[in-house]
């Protein structure tokens, strides 16, 4: 981690009353900011510190913890300064809302839709918050930890016939 990045993180910690954490033994310092300040923080990170690319935006679910249940994980990259900044924002499971950063980084649009689709975190002020990967009428948010994987029993030689009976094979003609 360059000295420059350390001062950036220090300035952001002061300004948005955040904290820092270490990812792992060899990892980088990560900044934690309260979720309600993330839009403002993103604006400052983009405009003042020159992090012009949003590399990655995702979430993590810590179920069964409720408050905070989710962490939003951002990674901003500054192409001219050749450095990257990791930011996390805890989100409560009781009110999974977060402000959007779409106006600052345009590609947050789809990334936030993906987080909404798979985790059910709603982004306030988002221009087009629809499901993106799952069908529009899907129920539940698959990447939540309390959502089952949806494992089906595999067919082996010993249980082939048993499963074959209930396997819904398709027919040529549609059942009218």
């Amino acid at each position, binding site marked *: 981690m360059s000295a420059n990045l350390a001062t950036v993180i220090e300035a952001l910690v002061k300004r948005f009353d955040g904290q820092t954490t270490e990812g792992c033994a060899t990892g980088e310092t990560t900044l934690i900011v309260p979720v309600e300040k993330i839009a403002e923080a993103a604006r400052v990170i983009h405009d003042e510190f020159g992090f012009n*690319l949003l590399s990655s935006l995702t979430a*993590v679910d810590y179920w069964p913890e409720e408050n905070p249940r989710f962490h939003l994980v951002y*990674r901003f990259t500054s192409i001219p300064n050749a450095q990257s900044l990791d930011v996390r924002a805890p989100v409560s499971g009781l009110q999974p809302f977060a402000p959007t950063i779409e106006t600052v980084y*345009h*590609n947050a649009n789809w990334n936030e839709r993906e987080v909404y689709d798979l985790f059910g975190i709603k982004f306030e002020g988002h221009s087009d918050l629809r499901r*993106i990967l*799952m069908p529009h009428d899907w129920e539940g948010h*698959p990447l939540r930890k309390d959502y089952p994987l949806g494992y089906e029993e595999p067919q082996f030689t010993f249980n082939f016939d048993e499963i074959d009976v209930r396997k819904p094979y398709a027919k040529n003609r549609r059942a009218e």
Partner: protein
Amino acid sequence: MAQIEEVTLDGMTHLVSNRALEGETMLLNMGPQHPSTHGVLRLLLELDGETVLNAIPDIGFLHTGIEKNMEAKTYQKAEVMTDRMDYMNTVGNNLAYCLAVEKLVGLDVPVRAQALRVVLAELKRISSHLVWLGTSALDLAAMSDFMYTFREREMILGILEMVSGQRMMTTYIRPGGVWRDVPVEFEAAVRDLLKIMPRRIDEYESLLTKNPLFIDRTAGIGKISAEDAVNWGLTGATLRGSGVNYDIRKFAPYSGYEQYDFEVPLRTEGDVRARYLVRIAEMRQSVRIVQQAMDKMPMGPVRSNNRKFVPPPRSEIGTSMEALIHHFKLWTEGFNAPRGFVYSAVESPRGEQGVYLESDGGPKPFRVHFRNPSFDNLQVLPVMAKGFLVADLVAIIGSVDIVLGDIDR
């Protein structure tokens, strides 16, 4: 099978203009089954005559639940899933994932394994660009390139099959090194390829680069400025076609890329033709990298000696009780990674292929997220396509080089 429902615009009316709702402009559905969408991409086009006013991508038709499924497998077993994500860059996906695991548990990789990783990743980059060149030229009605590029691609797949036993889904790169050392024929096969490749790239270029029909279809089409490109999160050749120098291999070198001498091709036009030229130049650079890596390929082990994370070699299992125990434990329970999270990225043929990996201290990943370049690259399509013809849209989709498996995961 349930009755197929009527397609309606419900919930999407805010995306199209009022003119479309009044019936003045036409709404056209393109895909998910369409020959030039490179997979199962669906586009909702708003057209004024033949001019594209808006293109609304609808993705998810290939959503495979890879991220969720990886949470249910141990670190080694989850790796096979990464191959099937971006299926044109299988080696690069393995590499990105293995780098993340190695960073998380603190494994070091022998130099020979690093050099082999570079060789295979670059070969796979060439093969991915060959498929891109063949199919996107096919979209512009240049049939012969498809035949030529697939001829050379078979040679690369032959090399991959030689080292791993599989043509596409190699899973050759493993946490802590590679699966096993390459066979003796490997060097000759790669040298053969390197010898013919520069001439073959000239051959593809002679068909397209100065072809007036090709220039008409590509120059000035699908323009995007450097500033927009960065703000929309573009990476890879699509970004470098707009003149932004961002290549992870130079930006944050991994796997020993800093010791190779290569350039990052840049164009400033930001149109379809610029992206085409960047990719062609990238293939030449990849040939250069492979050449250098083969020339100074170090000898030595190809797997880390850390038995807590890397299974012992087969020869030791028969003689050492400890090796047998490690082997057994690693393939039944897997290894426990320390609690924490990492992000690591590689340069895939399409851009920044990032992996966010989080561990809760157990043998299975707690959360894996892939930052896929195509996902962000496709998002910009409405911006690029606005005001061009439907025929140009096909050229633009081809030039962005999307892989639907990469987008939908």
